[in-house]
């Protein structure tokens, strides 16, 4: 006889850390996209030089990235403490994504100055490194949630969708860049993809952040329903009847 598994909310006592994590991630994505958009727009109009643009972005990424990375780390820990079982494991894996914003402004220095690597398309590889450091843990995080039978159904579906969101926003720009600079330089079709990838790249933190916010919302609603059902002594989905 198939054993019924009781569904549990993602976090036990409070969903605040998950809300905060989602909000901080989305906010960092939004602010990062805005800083890049405003600065690049100024540079494209010749209001600031390419050097000034790079200095500004490097300052933002090194300072903002460091602060954001630390906040991510603390919030992931807080979430992990409030979770249990597979969900806790998911947050522990997700914690590794905290290093991505810290690495964003430092990947080139790390690869080419510290490690002394000499590779073609260096900035693409450096960008890919920090992307993978964010994407891989987040993808595993969402895979664990999507495959965990204790997680409420709405959260599982959202986690499942988020896997593809994370994959698309991370790897589409890398794929297009490799096409444009290494495999098919000059191809007009790739040129149009480059323009799309310029927009997609801005969603890299924003969309996973929004996913976390929705996860927190669904999980909290589930918790409320569960509590309410318990109060009325009504059997819940997947619970003992």
């Amino acid at each position, binding site marked *: 006889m198939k054993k019924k598994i009781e569904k549990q909310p993602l976090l036990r006592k409070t969903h605040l850390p998950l809300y905060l994590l989602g909000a901080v991630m989305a906010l960092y994505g939004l602010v990062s996209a805005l800083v890049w958009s405003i600065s*690049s727009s100024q540079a494209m109009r010749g209001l600031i030089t*390419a050097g000034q*643009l790079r200095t500004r972005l490097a300052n933002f990424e090194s300072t903002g990235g460091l602060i954001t990375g630390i906040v991510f780390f603390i919030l992931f820990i807080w979430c992990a403490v409030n979770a249990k079982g597979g969900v806790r494991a998911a947050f522990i894996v997700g914690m590794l994504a905290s290093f991505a914003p810290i690495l964003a402004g430092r990947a080139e220095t790390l690869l080419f100055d510290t490690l002394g690597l000499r590779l073609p398309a260096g900035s693409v590889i450096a960008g890919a490194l920090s992307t993978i450091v964010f994407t891989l843990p987040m993808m595993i995080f969402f895979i664990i949630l999507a495959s965990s039978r204790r997680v409420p159904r709405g959260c599982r579906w959202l986690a499942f969708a988020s896997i593809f969101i994370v994959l698309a926003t991370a790897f589409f720009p890398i794929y297009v860049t490799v096409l444009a600079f290494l495999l098919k330089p000059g191809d007009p079709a790739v040129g149009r993809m480059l323009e799309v990838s310029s927009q997609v790249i801005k969603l890299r933190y924003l969309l996973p952040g929004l996913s976390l916010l929705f996860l927190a919302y669904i999980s909290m609603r589930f918790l409320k329903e569960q509590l309410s059902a318990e109060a009325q002594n009504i059997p819940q989905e997947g619970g003992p009847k």
Partner: protein
Amino acid sequence: MKPSNGSMINQRLAALSLAVVLLLAACGGNNPPATSETTAPAADEFSGLNLVVPARYDPPIEMSSVITVDATVKFLGENDIHNNVWTRAYEQLLGIQVSYDWVVDVSMYDQKLGLSVNSGDIPDMFRVTPSQLLLYQEAGLLANLTAVYEAEASAITRDVLTQDPVALKAATIDGKLWGIPLTDASVANASVLWIRQDWMDELGIAAPTSMDDVLEISRRFTEEDPDGDGVDDTIGLCASKSLYGAIANVQGFFNGYHAYPGIWFERDGQVVYGSVQPEMRTALLALQEMYASGQLDPEFGVKDVNAINETIAQGKCGMEFGVWWNPYHPLNLSQQNDPTAFWSAFAIPSVDSTPAKSQYTTAIGSFLVIRNGYEHPEALIRMVNFWTDNLVGSQDEAVRSTFLGNIEAPDVVLYKYTPVLLWEPNAAIKAGNALREALARHDPSGLDLEAQWRYRIIQAYYEQGILEAWVEVATNGPNGSSAILMQVLEDRGLMNRFYGPPTPTMAGKMPTLQSMEEETIIKVIMGESIDLFDQFASDWYKLGGTDIVDEVNQWAANNP
């Protein structure tokens, strides 16, 4: 460099117009029809293209010519130099059956042409150098093109040929036009100053506004380890022993001191030779000091361009005077060892309050001419019109793919199959301006496909931080080097006043004088007394310079 493009004409109207023209042509026998243009006839290979086609000869006429090929000329399928898209277009669209009497490697062309002409076997249409133009015109071998040019040249042809102010003048002898100059980007050989922007940012250095700033940047690049490797191995200014080339030249440095080596310019009503003017001394002394303090490569005197490229690739070079396209080569090499390398272009700064001018020489090196006695000299103008109207004045990608080449077969460069090649002199400036305008309004829709690609590469640099895209940013982005060419064209350039064939004394003595000049400059920079330069200037006049100056001034009087 490819030509830029213009507008298209409706195809249905074209077919109708063509029918009328063909009818008139048939009634008029073999007489050349009026110069009114029409559009695409229904020739199979070209029927789907929006082409601007000059009036067609009916029945077709024959034109013998000669052409060069080299290892880079490749053909697809059944095509060869005698039967290709260009020969078929000339025949089917213009009614000109072009046949090549002989085909040789570029290096053999002048010799083979000389033999042909001497044996009386002169092609109907062929390419000549300025010296050959003068020689054959004086021998009465060339057709006067003045009238046919006036009657037949299209508006775009006239525009292309007047963008270079000396193009038509160079083909004119005794007030008559004897050839069609094969134009190219003359202003493109004007020097700009390239500086490692990432090193400037690292050291907190502002953009140079004077030659003093250039010297200071050079000093700091040499002494303050801008590459941060802890080794004293950087060079402030890279210079090649070639002195006046497109890469790591010293002429740009001299220009900052209002000295113009290697070219002729007007001073006090006389045309003078720049290399022997007093301004050279100041610049030479500055370079000598830089060399002595390690700001120039210690091996400068033996380093050719290939060696300079290696220095740039190694990330040891901080500045160079070069041309606008240097980021495509060799400055792109600097990213091999440093992915963050970025070079910025600057107009040549001045040593004083008078703005410096970049010297440049016309790119007109050859002309298309018609044999005297050929029945249809206007055919050449129609072939030129066909090129300019469709490939300079058109944005049509299908036309460009058909006649220039396309991305599917990048090795097959179709325009090499025709001797009629006129590049738009200001193409780089126009293309750069169009890109910068598109960038400023964030809208690439008005650009052709190639420019749209460049736009997106620049956008990738700014919006995605892809540093490999810096090459396009440095050339066509805001403040890019092509913008400096515009300044050169307006009031920051000095064009070589002498654009004629070598004068008699020049032909005999200039090579020796030039060797002496280069040797002297290198020796003085590497530490010999400045007196050596004074001695050179004095000797230059004694060893034939005086006669050359007289001849050039005489030429200038005849070619105002």
